[in-house]
């Protein structure tokens, strides 16, 4: 199994956030993780990449137990994480940001080549490579965040609300980017409020409710409205 989570419990202070999450994620798929605000989606992603420590349960990535490992070791195994809220390094240039994306890699020539490739793939980054990334627009920053994660050469990419605060036009662009990445062989776990974006590209859908996976299905099995009712309208 690619990524398998078994009976995961995570507390935030005294508050129980995850109460026995179990899920299996297949290689090469886009998995959409849905759930109301505060249901623990971000916590789950952070626990996978070692930013939170679980109370109990296990997380295995390609048969390696990764819960308890440090973030940098988890990254080396091939899991990258795009945090919620467009977390770039605002006081550094676009180029420096991209270099940081490759922080855990050694081969300098390859890194330089990948940066060039990234600038070609996202021309706006190429144009603004010398600019301070904090001065980029919201959409450009989101592109940079994705490029940063790609620089890690991960096999699995966790994305936390990539569309947050972006205009509908940019949301479409993000959707195209994500499907493109997936076609190139990247597996993706996507947390997304924008159901249309999420459902149009996801293979599998998981719904997190009361600290557990309440429901999972193939994305083609239900229509968007039904999902919306499940999650937002409390159906």
């Amino acid at each position, binding site marked *: 199994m690619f990524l398998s989570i078994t009976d995961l419990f995570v507390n935030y202070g005294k508050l129980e956030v995850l109460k026995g999450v179990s899920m299996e994620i297949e290689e090469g798929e886009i998995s959409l993780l849905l759930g109301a*605000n505060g249901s623990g989606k971000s916590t789950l992603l952070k626990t996978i990449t070692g930013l939170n420590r679980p109370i109990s349960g296990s997380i295995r990535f390609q048969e390696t137990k990764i819960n308890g490992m440090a973030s940098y070791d988890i990254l080396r195994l091939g899991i990258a994480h795009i945090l919620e809220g467009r977390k770039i390094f605002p006081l550094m240039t676009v180029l420096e940001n991209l270099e940081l994306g490759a922080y855990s890699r050694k081969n300098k020539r390859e890194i330089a080549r990948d940066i060039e490739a990234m600038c070609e793939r996202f021309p706006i980054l190429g144009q603004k490579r010398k600019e301070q990334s904090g001065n980029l627009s919201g959409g450009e920053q989101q592109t940079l965040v994705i490029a940063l994660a790609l620089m890690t050469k991960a096999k699995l990419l966790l994305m936390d*609300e990539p569309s947050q605060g972006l205009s509908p036009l940019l949301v479409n662009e993000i959707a195209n980017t994500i499907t493109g990445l997936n076609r190139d062989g990247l597996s993706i776990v996507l947390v997304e409020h924008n159901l*249309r974006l999420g459902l149009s590209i996801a293979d599998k859908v998981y719904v997190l409710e009361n600290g557990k996976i309440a429901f999972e299905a193939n994305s083609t099995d239900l229509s*968007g409205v039904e*999902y919306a009712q499940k999650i*937002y309208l409390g159906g």
Partner: protein
Amino acid sequence: MASDTKMIEKKSKKVLEVRKLTKHFGGLAALNDVDLDVSESEILGIIGPNGAGKSTLFNIIAGFFPPTSGTVMFKGKELTGLRADQVAHQGIGRTFQASTLFKQFTVFDNVFNAFHMHYRQPPWKALLHTRAVRQEEGTMKQKAMEILNFTGLASQKDKLAENLSSGYQKILAISIALATNPKLLLLDEPVTTLSPHMVEAVMGLVTKVRDTGTTVLIIEHNMKAIMDYCDRIAVLAYGSKIAEGLPREIGENKEVVEAYLGVMG
């Protein structure tokens, strides 16, 4: 017909008037020219995607930070420029998004402490714990118990707030706000993360609060709660108000559904 006339009647008694409210953080516009009217004794739901500016709106109304421009009027009195504690004195109570409580206090003390601004005995007498002061404190304790009875927390009164379940924590947050005896209550995500059963309980309480004559403003993502319990709904997206109306109207508004859920059809 009858409900329509009631609506008109309500509109004539505006409690809160927000005019052209704008807030910039750095270069980012969190709120853009927002107008909002809230009538007496109504429950107004404010919905919108994350980052739409809902909490910013609350924080400005409650005096936690000043707007870049625009005004907020409460019962005909300008609120802009007042500190948060002064706004509370005007009769506006609020809860916070995360369960913001006095975590190390008991449930009872959480509510009892919140009576701070209702004491009338002068402070030097408070220091001497004179009989009048003790009587006053007795009254406050009684009122605190009344609130706990009203909100259904009486049985939990000796527990530490941090040991409550998340549902009870949300109710405690409302109880604290009620202790300030508000005419307008701002609730920031009062049922988020709660189970359907607790959602019913909390929203039932909110309705009960409204029935005592308090106006309620709710930010919430739980659409069922909003649709079932709010009299009217306003929708924020990207810092602007994109729609306002009865729940039925909002539920049918394509623009709203698109902006909020990204769902078509």
